[in-house]
């Protein structure tokens, strides 16, 4: 087992842990953190792929590294935007819950029924 494989497996574990947290945690902030954990997993995987693709005496394939930097910037911006919206939501409503509204009511405001 070489280094690239170990990192690949670690990346898989990170993606799995992050995905679990993303689906299960009801708190938006935790979801944002979970998104970043998944993101770290993906970036680590990309790094491992770059390492595996090393050629021409380079220690790694440069293309994934360049894309990685861009990906990190995008994930950072996404996190910043999400946290900003979350803070505004808390300021406006005093809560951070994502669930909205009750289930559709069984009682139907239906004139046909009202007439009976």
């Amino acid at each position, binding site marked *: 087992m070489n280094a690239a494989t170990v990192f690949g497996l670690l990346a898989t574990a990170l*993606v799995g842990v992050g*995905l679990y947290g*993303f*689906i*299960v945690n*009801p708190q*938006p902030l935790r*979801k*944002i953190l979970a*998104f970043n954990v*998944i*993101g770290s997993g*993906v970036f680590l*995987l*990309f790094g491992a*792929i770059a390492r*595996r*693709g090393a050629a021409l005496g380079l220690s790694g394939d440069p*293309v*994934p590294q360049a*894309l990685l930097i*861009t*990906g990190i910037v*995008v994930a950072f*911006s*996404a996190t910043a*935007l*999400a946290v900003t*919206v*979350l803070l*505004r*939501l808390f300021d*406006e*409503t005093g809560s951070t*819950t*994502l*669930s*909205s509204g009750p*289930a*559709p009511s*069984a009682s*139907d*405001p*239906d*004139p*046909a*029924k009202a*007439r*009976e």
Partner: protein
Amino acid sequence: MTADAVTTPGGLLLPLAVLVPFLGMIAGLVLGGRNAQRVAMVTIVAGVAIALGIAQSMLQSGDTLVYVLGGFAPPLGIALRADGLSVVMMVAVAVVIAGIGVYARGDFGTPDGVREARAPLMYWLLLLAVWGSLNLVFTSGDLFTLYVALELLTFAGVPLVCLDGKGETLRSALRYLLFALAGSIFYLLGAVLIYGECGTLDVALLAQSAQPGPVTWAAAALMTTGLLAKTALFPLHLWLPPAHAGAPPAASAVLSALVVKGSFFIVVRLWFDAMPALPGFAAAQLLAGLGAAAIIVGNVVALRQERLKLLIAYSTLAQIGYLFMMFPLAFDAGTGAFVRGEVLAGGMLQAISHATAKAAMFLAAGLIYAALGHDRIADLAGAARLVPLSVLAFALGGVALTGAVPSGAYLAKKLLLGAADGSGQWWWALVLQAGGLLTTGYVLLVLAHALRATADAPAPRVRVRRSQEAAALALAACSLLLGFADAVLPGDLVKSPLDPGELATLLVTVVAGAALALALGRRLPDVPAGAALAAIGSPIRRMTVAVGGLFERLDFALRRWHVAGLSLVVLTLLFAAAMSGAR
């Protein structure tokens, strides 16, 4: 190296199409205040001119336009490409943005006596950002640039949802953003896997080098599902109804008509261009199955809505389903690949037709809301007198959605039905027809309420601008007249509206639609005939209402966060299984 790795004549217009809206955005931000709107107007004129210029040079050369950034050819460099698909989408988006821009001058003008108002400034900047991101989506030639474009589109779309800064819309925006982020990370993971397997992300190179195998299947499944989450295809639609219904009308129109088309376009790129031979028949059936479910559930729940804007949002959900019906029909069993042809033309026509019609409907709904002070469907009486042109625009947009002659949706439906017939996939033809009937149902329901007279002549709460009504009407007319695009297609597809066969179809559609509206509508117009019908049909109606309620509860259950998150994972596995099973 592929032959197209050089910049073609007219290729320079491609980076311009992307850069000009973003430059306009930056200029608007720097100049601030009411200058942002002026800059936006100038940019819209320039952007429309660029889109037309691209179409012109494409027609001249008859070939894909290419611009190689910095002269570095793929796979190391990045190429922007515009084929026929990109060009029609760019022109359509330019037209819709121009229409919405004219409308938004009324809603998002900076008030007198104020140097700078937050919502108008943000609106104009974000409108340009959405446009630039969409143009990048349409011209990107590699999967990573597509990822960046997709993210830009989301970042521009999310703040549009919460322009008014109220708690409920902020919540919708956060739901939208978080779920969209899940979608984009799935897409990115898929792209990373593809790079690891094929060593390139360039679409044209992938078409030659992507081989079937566990890694490519997993990657394609991840990317597809991620994109579906961003497109809000059923059952990944938890964010769409509150976000699209809660935003201001001029923003809803952008979100519903344009933003969801961005990720849809990338699915098309992926399945038709990057790896046409990979997904196979079973995955296409799965994709269209989700589309069919979206059509049925979206339309039925739309019929059950009490608010006009929510009705239109659910209608968008259903129309997104239509977009995915083309995939199995474009599958060529002989080669085992997806082929570009009349079916793809039909699908894109559907997308453009929906973009124009839905923009018109949201704008019209905004004007009706402004005039009446509410958008409760049951209390729309008198709207046709107050804002006749807006109601007309809504009606024309609705008629265009139902696929009446000579709308773009009609032509698209003809092409898809023909393909369903030709390939023996009759079940998709059934869904297409049923969707048309349900659409007719809710359009009729709204119009029946809006056309009712009121006892006292109502006074408009605010006087709506003529230019706003004209913008909505023009967009609706665009959608209704798109059927004339058949001039470029072989065969005589559009029949005269007075043809006996067409008239019979129209009659059946209207009667069946009215019956569906009577059976499922939440509040029926209170007319004597309606009361008589209700008396006769009340047992039937109780049953149909129960069915409608069932659909509503299903929709509500699927829109819970953990259910949608689980659907995301399950769908990825299903797509991967369907792709591997095809071998």
